[in-house]
């Protein structure tokens, strides 16, 4: 098979790129974060991970024949496996590094953040998972356009997905580049290119089967690494949380204040807007929604959310323990501070406490392991994103809108592969272009757009009979414009990027305002819509409702 030969060649090329970069890069230091010395054990373990996942991709390639295999692994993933994969999608490098460093820096406030990240899960299961699974085939646009205008709503939903995918890809690419400079001692561009190439290889050849297994392996490694690190940390304190707390109070500059809420979330509007964005933004991330279509039936879909929330909750609690332990172990050790000044700037920046903790407790080998896992995490998340983007292009835009369902399976597969290749190139180019930018605003945008553009149409199409095409389009556009405008006027862009003295929009996350506006506009425009097509759309709700509740008709539809 030529596909296999290309796959092997790509594998060889990637490994060669990684290896050949090692000696060449020992020399200079470029970019924002300073590059650390080359870490051979980390690179070694990462290469082991890559080889294993490429092996899986090779196996998956032989099983990826139809579009259903490509988009949803043919529905052949069990609930437990899918639970791990969802957890993997959710436990990104940002949660491991970001949440632990927040607890390290702010104590309890970091814990509150962690809780806010978590509570969306049960809500997704109670209100969405069932209906998503019963109505959708491959993409979120399948559901949004179920009884609405195929051309308009599908195009709009696909564009919404692609916007979210692109923003999030940039965040991940820039994160990968910075992290690799720090952890592996490799050049930024090398990291971005390696991530781009591997992502394209996984997705084009292995489709959803490979993407899922990469995510599962990574989730297991991350959970295992986290548990081991927590075990080592706890053993320092005689396995007593009380002792960790006591010593953290003594070591932290804020003393006993870290044991309760502080200033971070003191403003309730800010806290509510952030939690809405996280909660409903997560529910409407295209690469998370896709996961509900990879299991054979609704039963497995529910199980997978139960397992996923268990893994995520457990992992988040561990991350908090790690953050608290790091206050003492990392926060009082001069070797982790620039110039050896305890309480000064952490080597590698504010996101590094958990990495330093790994070094303090498990030496260079454990640091290498955790670094490799962090990189693998980014790789797994971008693969999921690329697959979601490719399906929006190939399934929604090409097969359904442009070819109006006349495309053959072969043609659709070809387009999806070209699409993932294009997304890979785009991700690399954007990743390099954004190297020097502060991309924090893109995280706000990703979740803001997902919560304000994708979520309202998704939930209303399933729950509200009155939704019409005009209403969905008007509301979606209102959500998109308001989310983007508010982020531009917020601190992350107005002050950090555009150098104005004060933000016009004082909050970090626009969801409270943009999502509310999107819902209002959608509902008002739908109510005012008295066209004949609107009437037909309302009438079609009853049948859609039966299917969303029972799944009758879903199995046949999944085949197309």
């Amino acid at each position, binding site marked *: 098979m030529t596909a296999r030969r290309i796959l092997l060649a790509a594998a060889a090329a990637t490994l060669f790129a990684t290896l050949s970069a090692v000696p060449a890069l020992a020399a200079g230091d470029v970019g924002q974060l300073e590059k650390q010395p080359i870490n051979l054990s980390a690179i070694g373990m990462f290469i082991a991970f890559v080889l294993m996942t490429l092996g899986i991709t090779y196996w998956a390639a032989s099983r990826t024949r139809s579009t259903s295999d490509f988009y949803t692994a043919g529905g052949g993933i069990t609930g437990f496996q899918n639970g791990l994969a969802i957890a993997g999608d959710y436990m990104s490098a940002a949660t491991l590094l970001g949440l632990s460093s927040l607890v390290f820096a702010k104590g*309890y406030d970091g*814990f*509150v953040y*962690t*809780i*806010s990240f*978590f*509570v969306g*899960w*049960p*809500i997704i*299961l*109670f209100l969405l998972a*069932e209906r998503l699974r019963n109505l959708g085939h491959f993409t979120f646009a399948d559901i949004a*356009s*179920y*009884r609405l205008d*195929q051309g308009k709503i599908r195009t709009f939903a696909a564009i919404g997905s692609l916007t979210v995918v692109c923003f999030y890809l940039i965040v991940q690419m820039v994160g990968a580049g910075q992290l690799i400079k720090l952890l592996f001692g490799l050049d930024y561009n090398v990291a971005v290119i390696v991530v781009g190439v591997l992502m394209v290889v996984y997705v084009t050849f292995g489709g959803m089967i490979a993407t899922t297994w990469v995510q599962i392996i990574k989730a297991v490694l991350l959970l295992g690494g986290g548990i081991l690190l927590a075990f080592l940390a706890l053993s320092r304190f005689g396995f007593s*949380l*009380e002792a960790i*707390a*006591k010593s953290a*109070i003594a070591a932290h500059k804020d003393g*006993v*204040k870290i*044991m*309760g*809420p*502080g200033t971070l*979330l*003191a*403003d*309730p509007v800010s*806290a*509510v807007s952030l*939690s809405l964005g996280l909660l409903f933004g997560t529910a409407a991330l295209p690469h998370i929604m896709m996961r509900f279509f990879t299991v054979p039936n*609704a*039963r497995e879909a*529910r*199980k997978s*959310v*139960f397992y996923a929330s*268990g893994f995520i*909750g457990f992992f*988040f*609690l561990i991350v908090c323990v790690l953050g608290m332990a790091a206050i003492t172990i990392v926060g009082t050790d001069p070797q982790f501070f620039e110039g050896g000044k305890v309480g000064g700037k952490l080597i590698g920046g504010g996101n590094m406490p958990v990495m330093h903790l790994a070094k303090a407790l498990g030496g260079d080998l454990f640091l290498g392991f955790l670094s490799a896992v962090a990189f693998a995490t980014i790789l797994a998340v971008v693969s999921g994103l690329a697959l979601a983007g490719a399906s929006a292009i190939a399934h929604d835009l090409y097969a359904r809108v442009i070819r109006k*369902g006349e495309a053959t399976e072969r043609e659709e597969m070809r387009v999806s592969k070209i699409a993932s290749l294009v997304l890979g190139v785009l991700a690399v180019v954007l990743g390099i272009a954004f190297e020097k930018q502060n991309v924090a605003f893109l995280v706000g945008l990703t979740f803001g757009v997902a919560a304000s553009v994708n979520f309202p149409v998704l939930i209303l199409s399933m729950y509200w009979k009155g939704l019409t095409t005009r209403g969905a389009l008007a509301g979606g556009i209102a959500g998109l414009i308001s989310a983007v405008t508010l982020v531009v006027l917020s601190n992350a862009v107005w002050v950090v990027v555009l150098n104005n003295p004060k933000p016009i929009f004082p909050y970090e996350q626009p969801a409270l305002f943009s999502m509310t506006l999107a819902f209002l506009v959608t509902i008002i425009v739908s109510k005012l819509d008295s066209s004949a097509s609107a009437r*037909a759309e309302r*009438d*079609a709700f*009853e*049948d*859609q409702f*039966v299917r969303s*509740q*029972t*799944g*009758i*008709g879903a199995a046949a*539809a999944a085949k197309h």
Partner: protein
Amino acid sequence: MHSPANNPVYERVRRNPKFQELVRQRSRLALILSAIVLVGYYSFMMVVAFAPDLLHKPISDESSLSVGFPIGAGIIILSWLLTGVYSHFANGRFQDLTDEITRETLQ
């Protein structure tokens, strides 16, 4: 191609009393569980915003840990257990009911 308006199969399902029962009971469960999670979480956030001192209190007089930690961990663990409750009923009784409805409709 989708949404065949008023498909006779779906019409038959709608008239099945078991379907009405399924929808009523499952929606009620989902709403109650969502309410527990959301009310619990947003009450917690209101305490964080308006009465943070309540969470600063130590667990006992000698303890360094504040009551905020077990409460926070409790929210995470309770939310997770509720997904278990939902899955238990949805995969048990409600799934059986769904299977019955499907069988009766498609025979």
